[in-house]
């Protein structure tokens, strides 16, 4: 299976072109703030190096959230448009799960978190089983102080990855010897891991309705739903 995998869900932009589990080309950039300008040129170059044409692809795999809303939309729009226009398969993989897949130790617990501002995190906890991350605490947007006791209650060693700057000290205090820290590069998303996971997942049945998993409503939408709890939202966009 020829696969293009891409992750633009955070500061890191990662692209991989794979043939089954063989990596043909991969590029990971951590310094760009312009994913919109850089993603397609990097895809184009990676495909050329891999000597593949777009029509050769069987499947596109994308990190579909959580993450930066704009970043997610750049990746998901690219992936769903490619799948739609080439009539190929599309798979969405958790941005958190893809980072957990950097850890290979069987049965290991891995917690991954992105800074969600105001002491909130986008986070998920996984267990590595048969080389694959399996969700233990589902991906969610949650105050860090609410997540921490849940991780502690698992009462076993846990690898913590992601944006940890604001949380490191509290993790140490709460988890003590159960906290396992790894070098920073294991917190970077890798489109190779994404591609590996995406080949073991069923493709989405409906490309058209595929959207990022933001895991958070916009403030305007949340306020509206609070005031209008029974309102049906299906008619808000109409073709004219």
């Amino acid at each position, binding site marked *: 299976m020829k696969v293009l995998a891409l992750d633009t869900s955070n500061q890191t932009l990662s692209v991989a072109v794979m043939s089954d589990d063989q990596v043909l080309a991969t590029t990971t950039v951590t310094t760009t703030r312009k994913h919109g300008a850089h993603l*397609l040129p990097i895809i*184009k170059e990676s495909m050329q190096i891999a000597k593949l044409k777009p029509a050769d692809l069987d499947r596109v795999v994308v990190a579909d959230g959580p993450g930066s809303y704009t970043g997610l*939309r750049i990746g998901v*729009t690219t992936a769903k448009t490619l799948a739609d226009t080439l009539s190929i398969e599309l798979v969405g993989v958790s941005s958190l799960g893809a980072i957990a897949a950097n850890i290979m130790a069987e049965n290991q617990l891995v917690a991954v978190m992105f800074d969600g501002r105001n002491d909130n995190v986008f986070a998920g906890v996984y267990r590595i089983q048969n080389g694959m991350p399996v969700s233990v605490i589902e991906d969610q947007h949650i105050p860090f102080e609410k997540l921490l006791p849940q991780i502690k209650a698992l009462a076993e060693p846990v690898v913590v990855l992601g944006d940890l700057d604001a949380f490191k000290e509290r993790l140490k205090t709460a988890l003590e010897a159960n906290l396992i820290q790894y070098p920073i590069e294991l917190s970077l998303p890798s489109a190779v891991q994404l591609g590996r996971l995406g080949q073991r997942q069923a493709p989405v049945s409906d490309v*058209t309705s595929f959207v990022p998993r933001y895991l958070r409503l*916009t403030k305007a939408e949340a306020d509206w739903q609070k005031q209008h709890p029974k309102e049906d939202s299906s008619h*808000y*966009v*109409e073709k004219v």
Partner: protein
Amino acid sequence: MNVERNLILAFESSCDETSVAVIENGEKILSNIVATQIKSHQRFGGVVPEVASRHHIEQITDCIDLAMSEAAVSYEDLSAVAVTYGPGLVGALLIGVTAAKTVAYAHDLPLIPVNHMAGHIYAARYVKPIEFPALALLVSGGHTELVYLAGPGQFEIIGETRDDAAGEAYDKIGRVLGINYPAGPEVDRLAHLGQDTFHFPRAMDDSKSFDFSFSGLKSAFINTVHHADQIGETLKREDLAASFQQAVVDVLADKTMRALDAYPVKQLILAGGVAANHGLRERLDSELTAFSDVEFLKAPLKLCGDNAAMIGAAAYVSYQLKQFGDMSLNADPSLEFDWIAS
């Protein structure tokens, strides 16, 4: 004779409409799918950018599929892919730009970046070909400007609003009248039932520049209504609407006529969302009788709002001029035409 058919797949997503169209030879609309989010944003009294971006990504591939199937063409038939890359909301623009680049890459097609305002002007191309030089009055929710077109692909600003766009002023005074966004059509309807009894100020009307200003008019309107509220007086909404619209139309018409004096042209083009305003269309119709050699081209009512058909028409000109973009094209939310050299 077998003339080659030029087919452009065009994208527009700069604000609250997701639109994809297939255009033949820059003049024939084979399909023009428009998914509008107005009902969603009406809940909030105006466009919420993050909500708009989320709707665009829900709609984008559906609009592509519908545009292709309605036009009954396949990707091999296409000559190019075109997209609005600015001005507009950056998150909204990014959906169209990203999708257009992806289609262009997937099918090895040239990519044509289009300025949204050039698109609005070229909506008039569906009435008849544009003849140069031409002058365009562009009036929308985000822009009010006079643009000089010396030739194909040449757009130079000779005047623009210094504060609110005309459409923005309509929305703001509409709110005071209890009319939800977009308020233009309802204010226009009320205006036709009332009289200009309030004589609001005509801003910038005596100045020599071709710039507009609508914030003074908006403030005068709001102050008049608030003052009446305080003394318990009820003002006639129809007269308020008529007085407001008359002031807007006076300024737009006056500046446009002066621009026509200064820049002799073959055509005057009226375009943009507010170009659908009946008061403005009627006024310019009557004023233009003084310019017998200037042809008046009004964008079709159905194409005044944001749509991809207009982007495809503008893109056809770029195609002929070989003005192509590459895969690094990015959204430019504050893109604008250059000012004319004075």
